[in-house]
Structure formats: C-alpha cells, structure tokens
C-alpha cells in the first residue's frame, strides 16, 4: 500500500506548508531551459525562485524540504481546457462554456471559473500547475441559431487559489475564434455549404473592420461615440496585445485562418489542428504557434496512416513550429504529459515534448517571465516527481504553486481512502 504512505506524507506536508519560502535540496533539477543539475537545490523566497544551484547554503531557520530521490520540474501547463467552466460535461447546468451569440469577444472565461471545481485537485495531482481555460461552443450551432465564431477570452489560470482572482496568471490570454469549416464528409450540398462558409468568412472580416472603425472613432473622439463592450474587447486584439487563438482542424480551414490573420494583421495561435497538409511552412513563415490537441487520437481520415495523429507533433517540430499541447477535455487534463510522450515515441525530440508542456505554453500565452521553467525570478510552480513526468508510472510527490505546497489529495484519493476502509 505504497500510495497510502505517500498520501500521509502529503497531508503532513500541507499542514506544514503555510509558508512560501523554503529551500528544496537533494533534488535533481530539470529546469527545462537550462541544463539539468544533478543533486541540486532550489531556493524559493516569497513564492519566487530566488536561486538554483548545485549547493545552496540555507540561512538559519529556513524551512528545508528534502527532495531525495526526486526530480524537480516546472509545473506543467495544459494549453487547452475548459477547467472551472464545466464540471460534469453531460449535465448542462454544470457547463458554462458555450454562450449564445456569434461574435462574443467581451465574454471572459475567468469570471466564470469555479475555484472549487473537483477537476483542479485531480489535474494538479499529476503535476499540472496551470491551464488555459477558454469558452467554446465548438462551433456547434444552437437550435435555430448561427454557429458561434468568437466565443470569448481565454484565461491562463493556476490550479490553486481561493477565488478566480487568485487563480489568474493571465486574465486574458487570448481571444478564442472558432474558424468556420466546410463539411468534412463528401455529402452533397457543397455549393450551399461553401456559400455559408464564404459568408461567415466575410462576417469575420466585417466584424474586425467594424472594430477598427470603432477604434478610430474612440481615439479620434468622434461625436456621439458610445462605448460598446464587444468593440472594447477587440481593442487589445487590434493593438497586437492579445493573440487570437483560432480553432481550425482541417487544412482548408487552417489555410484560410492564416490568410485571415495576415489580412487583419492579428497575432494568431492555431488551436487543435488535425492535419498539416501544406500549411506548416506558412505557419512557420508567419511565426504562428500551434496548440496541438491530444496526440492519442484517431487519424482524421480513413486513409490516413494509422499513426498520423502520433506523428503530427514531430512533423510540426520538423517544420520548425513552436508547439504546446492541450488536452481539450477536462476529464483528461491529468493525462497531458502522456500525449507529449506519445509524440516522443513517434519522432518528437524529448526536450521539445517537455518544453511543449511547460515553457512553450508559457511563452505562447504571454507569461514566459512568470512560469514555464525553473529560472531565477519566476514563480515557484514546481513538481517533484519520482522520474520522467511524461511516463505514466511516474508519481508526483510534491507540488508547489507560487511557492506554496499544494495538497495532492482530491476527490479520487478521498473516495479511495474511504472505500479502502469499507469493512
């Protein structure tokens, strides 16, 4: 009953862990950006990494955490979730991801995040310290409604905090745009579908143009100017401060999305592509980062190679793209690292896979200066593992978010304990 003892240790650690200043030592440090240090130490002061080295002499009275036999990594970042917005995906009342309306840039995921969601402790128990959570209707039309195109603003949040304010790392990390798509199958009715598609593309451009006029009117102090929340939400996008995260799966949509971003001169992040086709060089040329969906996925088309989903990340790497991973399913956030591992099995260099769940994500979501690696001055989002975090059998023994040691128990471990003890 090894895990039992582990939990006991955790619990004890939590009670003692009311301070965010400590020295972690006897630990192998995998900083991600720099060379790893065997048997090193990390000094955390006020929740931030103050020093990293092979030997740090603790000041008197400093709390010391012994990491013997463990490895320290930066906490992992899942770049595509609905965490905090949806609890039981099948029960509408617990789901706050899909608002009405076609263009809804003013919606902010952050304010609807339920800090008490059972998903947070479950996910962080496996070393996930931050996630991008975003509103999304998946482009599905509501009955009688149009397909949603802009679903709102995604937030990068920590996995521990009392309120959503405390969870926030980047309150508005991206605007989520669900790119229209043509029907994937070969059903007839293409001409009509294409007409709708073209109209939707036009609508997107129109919306951005409208926002641009609004900005001119606002900056120029046009008479009769009225504040419009939708348009206000677009300003940071137009000013290049906020990237547009565009969901596009198939080659055609990706191509058109790239062109759209170029036309409108917005910073684009591509979300969840399922194939590259000929788009990879274009993505590279325009420095568009990519959030890959689960590697453990079926091929998109019947004729695709059986391992086409497995090799997608390696192909991105070979094309020189900056990639991060998202699970795009709350239930499996904890399995984020395994998607990266499969990508390694099928050709992605290990270091890149690790970056894709840490520093790359931080960089793409504009918080490279705060998280994503073990570097001096960054927040102490750390996980202490028994081994390679991309391997299933590896256990996370300790987790720190902003230097605070986080409880690793969760709904699952509690039920486990409870029913282990059922007479």
């Amino acid at each position: 009953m090894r895990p039992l003892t582990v939990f006991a240790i955790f619990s004890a650690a939590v009670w003692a862990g009311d301070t965010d200043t400590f020295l972690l030592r006897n630990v192998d440090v995998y900083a991600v950006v720099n060379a790893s240090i065997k048997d090193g130490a990390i000094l955390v002061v006020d929740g931030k990494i103050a020093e990293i080295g092979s030997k740090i002499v603790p000041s008197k009275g400093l709390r010391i955490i012994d990491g013997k036999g463990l490895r320290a990594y930066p906490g992992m970042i899942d770049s595509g979730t609905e965490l905090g917005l949806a609890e039981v995906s099948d029960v509408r009342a617990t789901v706050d991801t899909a608002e009405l309306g076609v263009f809804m840039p003013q919606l902010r995921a952050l304010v609807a995040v339920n800090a008490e969601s059972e998903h947070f402790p479950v996910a962080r128990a496996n070393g996930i310290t931050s996630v991008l959570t975003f509103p999304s209707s998946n482009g599905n039309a509501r009955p009688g409604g149009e397909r949603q195109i802009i679903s709102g603003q995604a937030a990068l949040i920590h996995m521990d905090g009392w309120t959503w304010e405390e969870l926030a790392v980047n309150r508005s990390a991206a605007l989520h745009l669900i790119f229209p798509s043509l029907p994937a199958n070969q059903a007839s009715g293409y001409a009509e579908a294409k007409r709708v598609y073209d109209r939707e593309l036009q609508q997107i451009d129109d919306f951005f143009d409208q926002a641009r006029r609004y900005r001119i009117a606002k900056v120029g102090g046009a008479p009769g100017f009225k504040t419009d929340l939708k348009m206000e939400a677009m300003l940071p996008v137009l000013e290049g401060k906020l990237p547009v995260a565009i969901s596009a799966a198939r080659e055609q949509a990706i191509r058109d999305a790239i062109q759209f971003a170029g036309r409108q001169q917005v910073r684009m992040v591509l979300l969840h592509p399922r194939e590259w086709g000929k788009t990879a060089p274009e993505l590279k040329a325009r420095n568009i980062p990519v959030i890959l969906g689960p590697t453990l996925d079926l091929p998109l088309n019947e004729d695709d190679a059986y391992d086409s989903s497995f090799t997608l990340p390696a192909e991105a790497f070979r094309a020189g793209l900056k990639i991060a991973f998202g699970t795009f399913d709350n239930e499996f956030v904890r399995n984020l690292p395994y998607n990266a591992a499969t990508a390694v099995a099928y050709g992605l260099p290990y270091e890149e896979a690790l970056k894709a769940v840490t520093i790359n994500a931080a960089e793409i979501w504009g918080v490279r200066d705060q998280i994503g690696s073990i570097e001096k001055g960054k927040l102490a989002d750390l996980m202490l593992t028994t081994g390679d975090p991309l391997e299933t059998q590896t256990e996370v023994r300790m987790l720190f978010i902003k230097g605070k040691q986080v409880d690793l128990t969760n709904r699952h471990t509690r039920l486990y304990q409870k029913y282990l003890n059922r007479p």
Partner: protein
Amino acid sequence: MQRRQERWKERFTRVHETLTNCLPKASARMQLLYLRHTETMERNRRRAVLALLRNAPVLKSPGPQYPRRPFAGCIAVPALCWVLGFGAFASAQQAIAIRDATVVTVSGPTLRKGTVVLRSGLIEAVGPEVASPADAWIIEGEGLNVYPGLIDGASNWGMPQNLSPGGMGRGGRGPEDRPGATTWVKAADELQPSDPRLERARSAGFTTAAVFPMRGIFCGQGSIVNLAGERAGDMVLAPRIGQFLTMSQAASGFPAALMGTIAYIRQVYLDAGRYAALKEAYQREPRGIRRPDYDRALEGVLESKRILLPANRRVEIDRMQNFAAELGQPAILYGMQEGYRSIDLLKKAGAPVLVNLRWPERGPDTNPDQPENARVLEMRDRAPSTAAELAKAKVKFAFYSGGLDQPRDLQKAIKKAIGAGLPRSEAVRALTLAPAEIYGVADRLGSIDKGKIANLVVTRGELFDDNTRIEMVFVDGKRFLTAPETTAPGGRGPVTNRGNER
C-alpha cells in the same frame, strides 16, 4: 379521336375493374353477363381491326415490295394508331417476318442472314432458311440486328410511385408487429400500364422486366412483366418470382439497427416455418386444435420461396450469402458494387446475382478539396468491371436498372460495363437469357427460339454501339417504333422518344 378512344378505354377499364373486383362474390348470372360483355367488346374490336386492315394499304400488301425501307411502317394511317395502341391482339395475330437480318438468338449461334417469324405473340420460326409465310408482313432486315427483347433484372417500372403500404415509417415494438412487411403485395397486382417509364424503357430496347415492390423490409413479391399492354393482366408473364427484401430500418420503432433488421427477418422465417407446420396440422385434423392465427405477412412469405437480398460491399455479399443459407431460401443477391472483388465468394456460392447498372458516382455537389477514401474511389473505378469479372468466372448474373430509366443513361451504363471488359455477347446475355434463366422463365423468354414469346429488339448496328439506333421493339409480337434521338449526342436532355405505334 384520341380522346374518344381514351374515354372508351377508361369506361371499359372501370367496368372491367368493378366486375373483376366483385367477381368472386358475384352471382353466376352476373359473371355470365360480364363474360358476355367482354366477349362482345372483344368481337367489336376485332371487327374494327379487320376493317382497318382492309383499308390500310401498308398492311394489306404483304410481300417483298413492302417496306423497302423498314421505316415505311411509320406512315401508318392515324386510325391504325389507336387500334394497334389499344388492341394488342390485332397486331400480335398478324404474322410478321423479319427477313435477312442478323439474328442474335443468344441461345444459339448468331445467324448472319436469318429470318424470324412472329405470330400470335410468339416466335413461330427462326432460322437461316425459314420462308416468310404468305400472309406475313415483311420487314426487310438487311442491315438490321435482331435480339431478344432486353429484360431488366430488377425494376420498379410500372409500379406506382407511392406504393408503400408497409413502407418504412414508424416501425414496430418488435418482430411480432411485422414492421415494414407487405409480403403479400404482388407487383402483378399493382402494375400501372400508363407508367411513362415503360415507354422510355422500350426505347432503350427493354421489353420485359422483373418488377418488384421495393419499399419496406419485406417489400413484396415481384412479377415478370412485359413493358407494354393495355391492361396489367396482359403484361404479366409470371406473377410470383420472389420476395424483395431490403436491409432498411424504421424511422422510429423496431427495427432501428441493421442487426435488428436481420434478427427480424430471421424471426419471420422461423415463424413462417412454424406457421406452415401449424396450418398443415390443423388442415389434417382441426378438431381439438386451436386454429393458428391468420398472419398475412407469413402467408406472403410462404408464397414466395425465392428471396432477393441486397449486397453491395464484399462484406455484405459474404453476410447475405451466409444469411440466405441459414434461412434455407434460394436467394438472389442484388447490388454488387464490389462484385469485382468478391468473385471468389460468388463463384463458391454458385448462386446467380443481379448487377446494378447505376454505377456508383461522385456526387454532383461535393467538396473538391476533400477527396474521398481510397476504397470509395476504387469502388467507383472498378464497379463497372464487376460484370466482366463475373462473366470470366462464369457466375450467372443479370443486369438491373437500379432506378435508371432514361434510354441514354441505360445505354451508357451498359457501355461502361463493356468498356470495363465485358464481352458484348455477355452483356446481351445478361440482359436477356440470363435474367430469364435466373427467374425460371427461360422456357418462354430470353432468346430467339421457336415458341418463345415474341419479344424482340431490332437495331441498326450492334446493340450498345455508340452509333447504334434502336429501330423497333416487339412486345408480345406487337411492334413499337422508336423515334430517332432528339437530343444532341452527349447531351443530358430528357430522352422521351415516342416509342409507341404510329
């Protein structure tokens, strides 16, 4: 004139139908009256025909001098039109000799210079040395090819479009509700001689079809019918040739899945076997036995042993072969889009199959950027080669129209099979003798042999050649001319040749 003819015809049909419907219940006297009535009408009609024959020079002068050009027949007097159009007897009884034509008998060798004599709706004689009877109307056959009339192996030509007494809408609560079953419906009973598709089919050289109700799961029983006749009864050659089955599902209710449909069919055949046994036992000794409940669905099942089962993919061919064997029913599989890669199975089973002439095609309005799966592409590429492969493997097969009814489309489809390697003679066979054999009517149909029904197609040029023209068809010895094509070659305009008598 034409209107009068129609009025008469309509009135006659109505009387006939009324009487027919009440016939079983009618008194002997009523029946007698009815028979007298019909006899009188028939007598009147014959009289009219004879009068016309006397007055119509074209038909009065049998002999080599007429017609020099076979198309001279077109200039018949208008009066002849309605008589012949209405009275099949009239022309059928007149002997016709097609002389010195290339006669593709299908059953035997092709005669380079042969004569076919038709009389009373039958082939009276055929051969190289056959003399034209003195009373025969002669058609100079030089340059003409004579084939047996083409047969559509499975069709709904002549079926009312809305025939779906049990068509799949709401399903049942289980097999016991017999959803989608109209096993008792016979195509012969539902025929509509006025269906415009009959005329179009004749223009494509078809004289006969195995016609089936095609909606539901147990759709009903097919009949072999000729594609001309004033009354449905005239057209029927064989009323019960098999039960047409589909693997469809109900819009709501049972069955909702393919496996539900299969289980349902299986249960029905189990029930039918038991039903037959119960009925037999009851027949032997009704006393002391509760009578078996009458089940019209099972009655229909018992009426037709042969079943037609759908099978396009190789998987389906395999599945349906096994299913038919399990049910113990002689089965004809229809569809065969992947027949080209199922030859081993088909050869092993040795059962005949029906090949759909409606070859799979890319939809007209599809996304050009989304190529289909290789297997779909391969199927589209190779489906038309199925016939050639079947012929090579000596698997008996017939073609069926699969909903095509425009002569041009049918021609094109057959040509596609020939283009994919099917010998022309085999194509002809698959549309003549093969379907006749498959349905057990080769003793009367499917080849040009003495005593068989005088269904012929006469062409200038070889059948299915690009420049070939179908000059006329004979149905029950009655001649139908086909108008020259009115649309430009390659055009897709409606081809509605006036294929009837002039």
